[in-house]
């Protein structure tokens, strides 16, 4: 238990330190969200129409941004060898790291999203749906991302491959997440949030095992 919390808190501490990933994911999220209107034009009707998709994609990218270091940082400086020899199973380690990553990226992104929703001229109901969908959906991003992080562990430029591996797998999250917002926008209810929850739950439960397997094979370096 203390061992698990040791990893959890260490990763959170590293992420929230100056220059840590937490603040940066937020800033990236905001930067992308502001850049798009610059390209698309300021027409609020159009922006509101595309807000769900753009913000969800931006959030996914922001979360992915820091994912490649999830295991790699520990791998390169040798910490991972020591963690692998610790009493914890790699599955537990992976779960702890996924949790830490979500707490330091997914959650903050969710909290920031209403603000960006406003900037895109989303009505309150849609904003609520956006935040809720991110709250439910971002764990899936951290979870599936962890698998990618484990697989690309031993690759120097792993950060480049990771998105290619993970983005297609995340399509459902984007579809259901943005779908929920659209539904709220059009005032009609669809099961998007439920589907999203199911997807997130499944991935979060399964990915620690896949991620651990990936890490294990990469330790044989």
């Amino acid at each position, binding site marked *: 238990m*203390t*061992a698990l*919390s*040791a*990893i959890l808190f*260490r990763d959170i501490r*590293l992420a929230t*330190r100056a*220059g840590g990933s937490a603040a940066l994911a937020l800033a990236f999220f905001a930067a992308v969200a502001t850049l798009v209107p610059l390209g698309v034009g300021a027409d609020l009707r159009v922006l509101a129409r595309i807000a769900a998709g753009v913000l969800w994609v931006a959030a996914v990218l922001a979360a992915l941004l820091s994912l490649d270091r999830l295991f790699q*940082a520990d791998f*390169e*400086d*040798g*910490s991972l*060898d*020591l*963690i*692998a*020899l*610790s*009493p*914890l199973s790699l599955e537990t380690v992976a779960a702890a790291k996924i949790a830490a990553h979500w707490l330091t990226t997914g959650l903050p992104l969710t909290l920031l999203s209403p603000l960006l929703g406003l900037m895109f001229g989303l009505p309150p109901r849609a904003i609520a749906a956006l935040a809720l969908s991110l709250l439910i959906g971002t764990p899936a991003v951290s979870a599936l991302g962890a698998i990618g992080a484990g697989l690309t562990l031993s690759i120097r430029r792993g950060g480049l491959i990771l998105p290619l591996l993970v983005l297609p797998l995340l399509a459902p999250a984007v579809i259901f997440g943005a779908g929920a917002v659209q539904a709220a926008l059009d005032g009609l209810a669809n099961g998007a949030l439920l589907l999203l929850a199911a997807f997130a739950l499944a991935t979060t439960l399964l990915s620690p095992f896949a991620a651990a397997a990936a890490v294990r094979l990469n*330790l*044989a*370096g």
Partner: protein
Amino acid sequence: MTLQSLIVDKLTGIRGQRVLFRDLSFRVAAGQVLSLEGPNGIGKSSLLRMIAGFLTPAAGEIALAFADTVIDEAEARARQIGWLGHHDGAKPQMTPREVLGFFAKLYGSDADIAAALDAMGLARVANLPCQYLSAGQKKRLALARLKLSGRPLWLLDEPLAALDAEGKKRAAEMLAAHALYGGIAIAATHEPLGVESARIVLGAVS
């Protein structure tokens, strides 16, 4: 349960296509220090990683004999091993005190961090981010961490490299003490360890 011996039996190690060692067998009893020697690239680090369970042998057995049981399965073996590798495992943005504190929690050790730092002469840099540590200071930190892992079987890859004379002495004392308390230590090294130790010299395979 107390460790009695490490048994390596007919071990064969292959990296890529290359056979590093074939049918390697040896036995280290509790209280022994083994110095693992041989030319560059012969396979010392690989052998250590294999004993630690990071590399899987192409053939052969690695077993830990205890008073009551024998562990020959990698997963379980790992829980008995204290590791000191080439990489220092020190996060640049964390201080030596934080690093030791983290690993103490991780390995479930209640050792006194301040004392551990002091024992390696790191008291003065205890709160300096590791990115600023000198090569030797990082090595000393790694040694301190190994000690507080509290594991019976130590695997060390070039523990003396980058250490000054005084640091080498402390390392030697650490190994001697570990052996004295019935532990086993295997160190890949290119210079004498400074403790009474058995030697294995790896050579090219025919």
